[in-house]
């Protein structure tokens, strides 16, 4: 199905925003301005955006430790996200969560997650809510290739199928879990596992936004119509280290530059829409400039923003406790 001009612009802007966000976080981390464990999504943008473009706030997603892209794609406030990563009081989570725990339940974003495999069970719950309340919503768990082996993930396949939930499992296979190759750690295949649990399974090139978007439409439609869960195996690469600070010595020489040159999702998108005369290079250039300026602004604001204070330390442990 053809995307409208607005949709194309939206998709490109979202992917570009994620990229610019991650590039900037990378710089700020390297400069010593951001503390903690930070995992960047650069290179993987087509997945978050390709799926989330089909969703509204009634639909829920659960993310991973590598969550910035999913957050942005699901509509989290980018400025508040940046403030969160800097640990500021007006961060999306008041500075209490940080990069690994950005969430916005109102937007249907159930949280980045520090626990590999933490999301799939939660997404079964969100899908159950949708089914029980008849909201028509779906729920998507994004899971890494490493996370695809975790028992919590595999159990969730079974539960989603047995309960016939509107749940979708997106295995974001960037080739590595930390320094361990997915070709080694994942026995069998993702699509084969889906079949083993009686679910439709798809493999898709994650550099190709249009391919992702198309598969996403199909599995989301199926789930919305009561057709149950599906699994999508998205393949691509990550550009930065596992976490910021990782020297990536385990990677092949030129592995990243080659993929970035030949298969970058933003480049491929641009090529496709320009060749097909769907968008003009100037339109895309303008988005690029706007986005970079925007990220620059929110970063500067985040840096200038105040820290939380002692008064915040013990709030929100419970709704109420006595």
């Amino acid at each position, binding site marked *: 199905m053809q995307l409208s001009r607005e949709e194309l612009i939206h998709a490109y802007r979202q992917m570009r925003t994620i990229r610019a966000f991650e590039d900037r976080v990378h710089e700020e981390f390297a400069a010593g301005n951001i503390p903690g464990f930070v995992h960047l999504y650069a290179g993987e943008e087509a997945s978050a955006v390709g799926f989330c473009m089909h969703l509204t706030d009634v639909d829920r997603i659960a993310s991973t430790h590598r969550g910035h892209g999913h957050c942005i794609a699901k509509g989290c406030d980018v400025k508040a996200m940046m403030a969160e990563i800097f640990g500021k009081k007006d961060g999306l989570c008041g500075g209490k*969560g940080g990069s690994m725990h950005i969430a916005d339940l109102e937007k249907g974003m159930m949280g980045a997650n520090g626990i590999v495999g933490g999301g799939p069970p939660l997404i079964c719950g969100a899908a159950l809510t949708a089914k029980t309340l008849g909201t028509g919503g779906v729920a998507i768990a994004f899971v890494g290739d490493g996370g695809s082996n975790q028992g919590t993930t595999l*159990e969730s396949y079974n539960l989603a199928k047995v309960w016939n939930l509107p749940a979708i499992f997106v295995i974001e296979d960037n080739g590595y879990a930390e320094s361990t190759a997915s070709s080694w750690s994942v026995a069998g295949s993702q699509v084969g596992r889906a079949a083993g649990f009686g679910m439709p399974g798809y493999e898709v090139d994650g550099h190709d936004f249009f391919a992702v978007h198309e598969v996403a439409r199909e599995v989301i439609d199926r789930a919305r119509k009561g057709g149950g869960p599906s699994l999508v195996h998205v393949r691509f690469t990550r550009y930065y280290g596992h976490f910021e600070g990782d020297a990536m010595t385990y990677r092949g020489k030129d592995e990243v530059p080659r993929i970035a040159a030949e298969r970058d999702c933003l480049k491929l998108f641009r090529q496709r829409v320009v060749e097909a005369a769907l968008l003009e290079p100037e339109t895309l250039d303008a988005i690029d400039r706007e986005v970079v300026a925007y990220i620059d602004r929110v970063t500067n604001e985040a840096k200038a923003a105040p820290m939380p204070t002692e008064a915040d330390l013990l709030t929100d442990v419970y709704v109420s*406790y006595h």
Partner: protein
Amino acid sequence: MPKKTYRQAINEALRQEMERDPRVILMGEDVAGGMGSPGEDDAWGGPLGVTKGLMPRFGRERVLDTPITESAFIGAAVGAAATGLRPVAELMFVDFFGVCFDQIFNQAAKFRYMFGGKAKTPVVIRTMYGAGFRAASQHSQCLYPIFTHIPGLKVALPSNAYEAKGLLIQAIRDDDPVIFFEHKAMYDEEAEVPDEPYVIPFGEANLTREGDDVTVVAMGRMVNFANQVADKLAKEKIGVTVVDIRTTSPLDTETILETASETGRVVVVDESHPRCSMASDIAALVAQECFSDLKAPVKMVTAPHAPVPFSPALEDLYIPSPAKIEAAVREVLAFKG
């Protein structure tokens, strides 16, 4: 007032809350039973029949049997709670928490804090605990000290049928994650239980006996044992105050400290292992806060630092018994300093 068993009281609380609020759902292994099987539907109602009859009343959409995948379904309950339902999930035996604790302590318990107050996770996890069933090491543990240790969780231990109904209704209406510990040896015990719904607020201890000589702080099934001891000693004119703390988190420190100060002699009874236990938690509290009022060292009565043995001969020696509680009470009374 009508007499009901602990089992019936729990069943009634669930039924009434499900009637009141369509967002309340149940899930767990065989909470109804008979899924996909040719014989009776609702065949089990849990292994000890606690949820029996709820599925026929509310349907399979609100009483969900699950595969044996505690991470997936406890996590699903957590995820459902965070998105608008009020699930009551059954972790059949608390001993199984080791296959699913992440969804409880890293997810449910921390969402609200990590997300800056923007999340609400009103999930209840009902679970069986305790020794005395000849169920051996992996089906007899207490483990509530572990849940109590975790900020973000609330932990309730009803000591009889009346408590069970009121605390469970509170748990379901509570906006925070609650772990609800049911002692497997108490399901057939009866108490007077009103027919209408009522709540027992969390963090408010209950004085089940009052006396001037010694304070026994207890929880769960141990409250009954403490009551037995108090009744026995009353005949000897020894006055025992028994504090049923009802919830280990939040803990009603005020009532504990008040009664401890009054008697100056305190025994804490906890069915769990001694190390980093509720017994040590309360003993430390009392020793610190009632320092000048204490006439004797606080005494802890707990299970030993050992797994629960199978053999009835050993299990009976293992459990903190009324006799051990009585001995401890006499010991603190006899202390002369």
